[in-house]
């Protein structure tokens, strides 16, 4: 991978070559089962901590696609079979994210990398042949590139070890409402091994299992066994068994039981599953407040760092540091045609400084302080990590640099708290920034929502 001018130099290329320990989490928590599709030689599937199974190339780098999506004044991203991410260094804004005009010279334009420097295409050799859903598409520069379901595949310069998914995520309503988040790259992965009646909803707490028809969360009951549902008549008034076809072939983690005469019910990981009749919003978690009942995740998100807490407020629950201060995530996607991100320490910081403290790093550090990590703090997951940051430049620093802060980070990006928050559960700085924090701004780390707001 061509070494980049200063900007991405810090990537420990050596670590990658060594193919250090698989990012497989210690298999205490079950991981998502997926359909083993035929893949081109060298491709593999890696279980990412948050996103579950994702495709990766031979070196373990996660693969992403950039599907076409609408921004306010037009469409960006790639159509099927037509990769557009190329070596051009964009210099001006596209003006597609209203109300600002196009043609504004982008910040730090001289050092702005090209699209493929951030998103190295997964090239295919001239003689590569299509395999399963993987096809070969032609790039404008004449080279061939692998595509999955027609969308060209890229890896991310930000990913270091196999299992890293730092380039893009499935968590935010990615690819959904580009009008607010901009057109994001999303990790490509094999379809989950779940019956067509079900769907997976990626939320911060993990890969939540819901019904496919209307996004209703499914639940399991402590009192049930693998072969018997103990939900009696009164219980059945609030919990509806998810009906299964008469003669379905049990496979993988799925089976069916006759929970009552003539009624076939799905079981997942040896537990009969239900929907909660009183749930008021799609992919709700209100049912898990009823003692004995739990939401079902094909794969739970890794736990927050030790000692961190979760607090309730007027909309739902948010993650907080040990002192109860709500934790915020900063996200940024610029307004150029190639929609490069601007929320990683190696990327321009001017966007963040504008909305966190009117371009004044000191005010930023006062209004949005980093979450300081103890010197010996250690994260046993990849998605949470500690890093050293120069608070003035916002860039990564060496551990013993003068003034460097040892801070907590999520997906290799520092997390923040908010000076305006006074008590646990406060969300004063939620949705703060351009397009209510979804385009260039801060969102609280929402763990649960009971009213069905837009959490990005």
């Amino acid at each position, binding site marked *: 991978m061509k070494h980049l001018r200063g900007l991405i130099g810090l990537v420990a290329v050596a670590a990658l070559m060594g193919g250090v320990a698989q990012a497989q989490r210690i298999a205490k928590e079950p991981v998502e089962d997926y359909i083993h599709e035929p893949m081109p030689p060298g491709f593999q599937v890696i279980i990412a901590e948050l996103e579950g199974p994702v495709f990766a190339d031979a070196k373990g780098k996660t693969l992403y696609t950039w599907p076409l999506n609408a921004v306010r004044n037009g469409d960006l991203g790639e159509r099927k079979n037509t990769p557009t991410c190329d070596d051009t260094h964009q210099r001006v804004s596209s003006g597609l994210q209203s109300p600002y005009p196009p043609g504004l010279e982008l910040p730090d334009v001289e050092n702005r990398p090209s699209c493929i420097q951030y998103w190295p295409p997964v090239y295919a050799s001239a003689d590569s042949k299509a395999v399963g859903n993987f096809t070969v598409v032609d790039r404008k520069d004449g080279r061939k590139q692998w595509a999955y379901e027609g969308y060209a595949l890229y890896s991310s310069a930000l990913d270091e070890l196999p299992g890293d998914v730092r380039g893009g995520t499935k968590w935010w309503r990615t690819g959904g409402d580009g009008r*607010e988040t901009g057109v994001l790259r999303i990790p490509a992965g094999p379809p989950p091994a779940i019956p067509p009646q079900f769907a997976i909803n990626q939320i911060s707490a993990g890969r939540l299992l819901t019904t496919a028809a209307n996004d209703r969360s499914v639940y399991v009951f402590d009192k049930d066994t693998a072969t018997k549902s103990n939900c009696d008549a009164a219980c059945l008034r609030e919990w509806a068994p998810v009906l299964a076809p008469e003669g379905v072939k049990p496979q993988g983690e799925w089976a069916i039981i006759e929970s009552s005469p003539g009624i076939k019910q799905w079981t997942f990981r040896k537990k009969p599953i239900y929907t909660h009749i009183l749930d008021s919003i799609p992919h709700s978690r209100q049912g898990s407040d009823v003692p004995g009942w739990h939401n079902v995740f094909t794969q739970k998100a890794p736990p927050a760092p030790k000692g961190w*807490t979760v607090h309730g407020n007027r*909309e739902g629950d948010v993650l907080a540091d040990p002192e109860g201060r709500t934790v915020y995530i900063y996200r940024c996607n610029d307004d150029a045609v190639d929609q490069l991100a601007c929320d990683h320490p190696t990327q321009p910081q001017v966007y963040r400084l504008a909305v966190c403290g009117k371009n004044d790093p000191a005010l930023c550090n006062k209004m949005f302080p980093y979450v300081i990590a103890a010197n010996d703090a250690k994260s046993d997951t990849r998605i949470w990590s500690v890093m050293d940051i120069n608070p003035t430049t916002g860039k990564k620093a060496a551990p013993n640099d003068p003034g460097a802060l040892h801070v907590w980070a999520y997906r290799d990006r520092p997390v923040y708290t908010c000076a305006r928050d006074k008590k646990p559960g406060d969300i004063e700085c939620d949705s703060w920034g351009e397009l209510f924090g979804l385009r260039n701004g801060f969102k609280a780390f929402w763990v649960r929502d009971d009213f069905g707001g837009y959490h990005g």
Partner: protein
Amino acid sequence: MKHNSILIAAAAAAAAVLVSGAAHADDLLKDRTIGYVLINKAFATWQSADGKTECPQGFNHGPREQFKELFEGVTNKYAETQLQYEAEIHFPGTGPEPRVFFREAQGKTALGLNLDGKVGPNDFTGPDGEKGIDNQMYRVVGCTENYRGPDGSARHFIESYMQKFNYNRWLFELTNVDSLADDDDVTVTIYRGLDGLTTDAAGNFTSGGTQRVDLNRGKEFIYSMPGKIKDGVLTTAPADITFPESQQRGFPYQSVHAWQARLKLSPEGASGLMAGYLDVERWYHNLPQQWSTHHRSYGAEPLPSQYRAMVRLADGYPDASGKNTAISTAWEVRFAQALIMHPDAPQTIAGKPAKTDIAR
């Protein structure tokens, strides 16, 4: 439990109504209690037919127009234009704005209530001649299209999200009421509700729906204050309150000092004005959380200029340095009569001990 206990209690009294039939206002009282749910809300902006009286220089320019005025021919660097404007929106100063001109609503007529009991020089006179109206917020928003009736964009979207997003459900319940015509001692209790609004065959919001009270996540929005009813008009004693107001993006709330309401009660509901001293910082802080600069340009709303006007026109609750922190404001509101249900035992999720596992 075969029957929901509160249902029986509330219903036993209802039967009395059923037997008596006619929906005369007093008949809606059930053990001296009646509930209402908010169905319409907008800033009370008095408007002349052609808008010239209060906005002789026309309406304000929005972000798109101000961008041209501020930066055209000056610079076309992203960081010095778009990011600079956004930075100014999120951290507005109070100094002069040379290249842009903010239009405040002129004239002496405005809707609203007399909040300070006095008739001061800056006060307005109501269209019906009432003196001493305090509504400086009218000057701030009166010439900004977003807030002007009948279909200013922000006005429309604030109301439509109030109607369709249950986070914003807002109730008040009158208790120990002897008569809805005259009663000089009633108790007004405000709650956040949990249920949607009821609509009729034509799609209008109507009375008679049920609203459960949110004693859990909505605990912070519960307030109680005395009220009086005279000739069918309810007036409440001033009280500092907060109420939820979100367009489903951020989840902010408004904070109002000396909030009070003057509402004409009818069998179907209540309508009139509510007013108070709106906390300037909180109202302004909510704007970028609610709707983006893109949406502000729907109704040509120049946020930085608007902040300066609010600070200038703030007329209440001075801070230590003597600078007023709140601005007299009035809203036109309409409520529908609703059957309010209090859950058996107040759940206490908000007070729940901290959990550690995100995915409990």
